[in-house]
């Protein structure tokens, strides 16, 4: 048996693969003698180099000291057969090992000419059509998802005892606790950066103490809720999409649906409630850390005592300022939850699909945050808040 491929024996002589052409056998065929070890990862002769400029003829391949062989010899023979077929000649391989002949026969019998290829390049019109159809499909999916969520919320109000409240608590506990350190660090540093930037300008007018006003207002109205939401979108929104996407790939969602369990009630609503409830709490936490960051810079670099900084902040930052930030963060939370769950539910059934869904959840989440923030800025401006 020549096709068993034990590991190469170090020090033993592995004969190089060879193929020699000899003219004029008794039956008039040209003879190609193949010998040596034919291995994929070694240099082997090619059919064209052996045949060179030889005129088409009936060919016969015979072994001549043939050692170990693998697909490289098979490939050589397939090339030989194609060469012969082109000039309507024959390739005789009867002298070769039986199993090699069987493989060649299998390949000859299989019709490899008709590959099931992907459709060719599309015209511009076809691409626009496909894009429009796809867009319509996505809009329909998103609207129907929003509708299902609304119906789900209505269901909770009507039958609160039927809802899985424990899942909401589990989501809150699992997702949010892990975000606390990173939100704390980023918010504190944002406070520090704002204080530094403000100090450079305000010190020139001897108004360094107003750093507290600037930091306080910026943090509670914009930066605190915004930074917390960005971090949550990157961490928790992505986690939602990956969890639900993986469940889809593993047919877990199919199993829920065939049991008659609403996937929105079971998977989406607990997550949405968790993000909506926890986001303002996280924003408040970010506000506190941001103000502390500003206080730290003022106390250490600007020689403003912490108590003076705190009094200034209290005088300037009102409940309405804090409230406006928190109201926004509720909507941020809802948007992040919706983006994560929607992308997870629409995930393709493959590893790549889960990756795409995760990325898309983060991008959509951040986009929703920024759009919501702009809308609120407009509303608050009109209302004079």
């Amino acid at each position: 048996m020549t096709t068993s491929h034990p590991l190469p024996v170090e020090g033993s002589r592995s004969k190089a693969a060879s193929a020699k052409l000899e003219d004029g056998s008794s039956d008039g065929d040209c003879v190609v003698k193949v010998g040596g070890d034919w291995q994929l990862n070694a240099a082997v002769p090619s059919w064209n180099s052996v045949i060179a400029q030889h005129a088409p003829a009936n060919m016969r391949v015979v072994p001549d000291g043939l050692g170990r062989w693998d697909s490289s010899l098979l490939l050589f023979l397939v090339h030989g057969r194609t060469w012969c077929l082109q000039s309507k000649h024959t390739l005789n391989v009867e002298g070769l090992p039986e199993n090699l002949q069987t493989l060649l026969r299998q390949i000859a019998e299989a019709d490899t000419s008709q590959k099931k290829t992907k459709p060719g390049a599309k015209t511009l019109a076809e691409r626009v059509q496909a894009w429009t159809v796809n867009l319509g499909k996505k809009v329909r999916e998103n609207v129907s998802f929003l509708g299902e969520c609304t119906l789900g919320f209505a269901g909770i109000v009507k039958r609160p005892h039927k809802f899985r409240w424990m899942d909401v608590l589990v989501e809150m506990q699992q997702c949010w606790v892990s975000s606390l350190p990173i939100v704390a660090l980023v918010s504190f540093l944002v406070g520090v950066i704002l204080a530094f930037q403000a100090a450079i300008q305000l010190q020139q007018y001897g108004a360094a103490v107003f750093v507290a006003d600037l930091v306080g207002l910026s943090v509670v109205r914009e930066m605190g809720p915004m930074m917390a939401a960005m971090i949550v979108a990157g961490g928790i929104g992505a986690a939602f999409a990956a969890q639900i996407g993986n469940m889809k790939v593993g047919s877990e969602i199919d199993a829920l649906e065939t049991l008659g369990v609403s996937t929105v009630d079971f998977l989406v609503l607990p997550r949405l409630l968790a993000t909506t409830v926890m986001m303002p709490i996280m924003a408040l936490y970010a506000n506190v850390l941001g103000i502390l960051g500003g206080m730290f810079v003022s106390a250490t670099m600007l020689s403003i005592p912490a108590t003076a900084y705190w009094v200034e902040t209290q005088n300037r930052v009102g409940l309405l300022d804090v409230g406006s930030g928190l109201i926004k963060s509720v909507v941020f939370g809802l948007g992040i939850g919706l983006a994560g769950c929607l992308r997870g539910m629409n995930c393709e059934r493959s590893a790549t699909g889960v990756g795409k869904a995760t990325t898309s959840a983060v991008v959509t989440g951040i986009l929703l945050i920024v759009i919501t923030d702009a809308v609120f800025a407009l509303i608050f401006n009109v209302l004079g808040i």
Partner: protein
Amino acid sequence: MDPNPTAPAIEVKNLTCGYDASVVLQDVSFAVKPRELLFVIGGSGCGKSTLLRCLIGLLQPIKGDVAYFGQSFTGADATKRREILKTFGVLYQNNALWSSMTLAENVSLPLEVHTSLSRADREEIVTLKLTEVGLAGSEELYPSELSGGMMKRAALARALALDPAIVFFDEPSEGLDPITSREMDRLILQVRDVLGTTMVIVSHQLSSIFRLADRVLMFDRTAKGIIAEGKPNELAAHSEDSRVRDFLKRDDGPGPQPNPADGGSKTHSP
């Protein structure tokens, strides 16, 4: 140590393996001859999959050695290990085809990593391999576009890409209907007969075991090792261990072939 061409294809010596503190297999030793078709059988949790993971290097044994053609795999350095990895292919239970790649790319990747073949040559070998497993013309399809049986075939084509001397199968008939499962068995036999490949198959399927196995190794959870070894028909008929007889004679498949002298099977006529 130099490889020994006369050595067994696989030799497992005093292998102990497990996870953290729990030992799943204790002092297991056996050898597989070249061209042999060996089945590893046993109930759930008996360590079949753990053994397979140890054999293919995904799990480091606690103790003992696995050798391929006389060369130690467990104690091999990185270069040697890479060399030994080329001697076997693996067909995983869930096929583990890379979903973002076409079948051609799936089969081509081992060739790309381990050989210096040109792109054109690789493409031709991919076509040969897919033809060998009966998937000629499916090069451009993605795994998600295939049926369960086709996916198994594609996974086999990938396992065979480097013409390995040994192929490991983890539950090759899992999730296949009986007819597709029979076709898979036929393909396994064909590959063994034509390519002379040594095969180690982890399976529960009685029909496949009786149809294909040269020899079976039966593992047991409490024994943490092999409790029976031999030809499946002989073990089913003559094993003194009731666990072995119960496993091989359970009523979910054809079991041992009936003796024609007993009259064989009967059919109802109208």
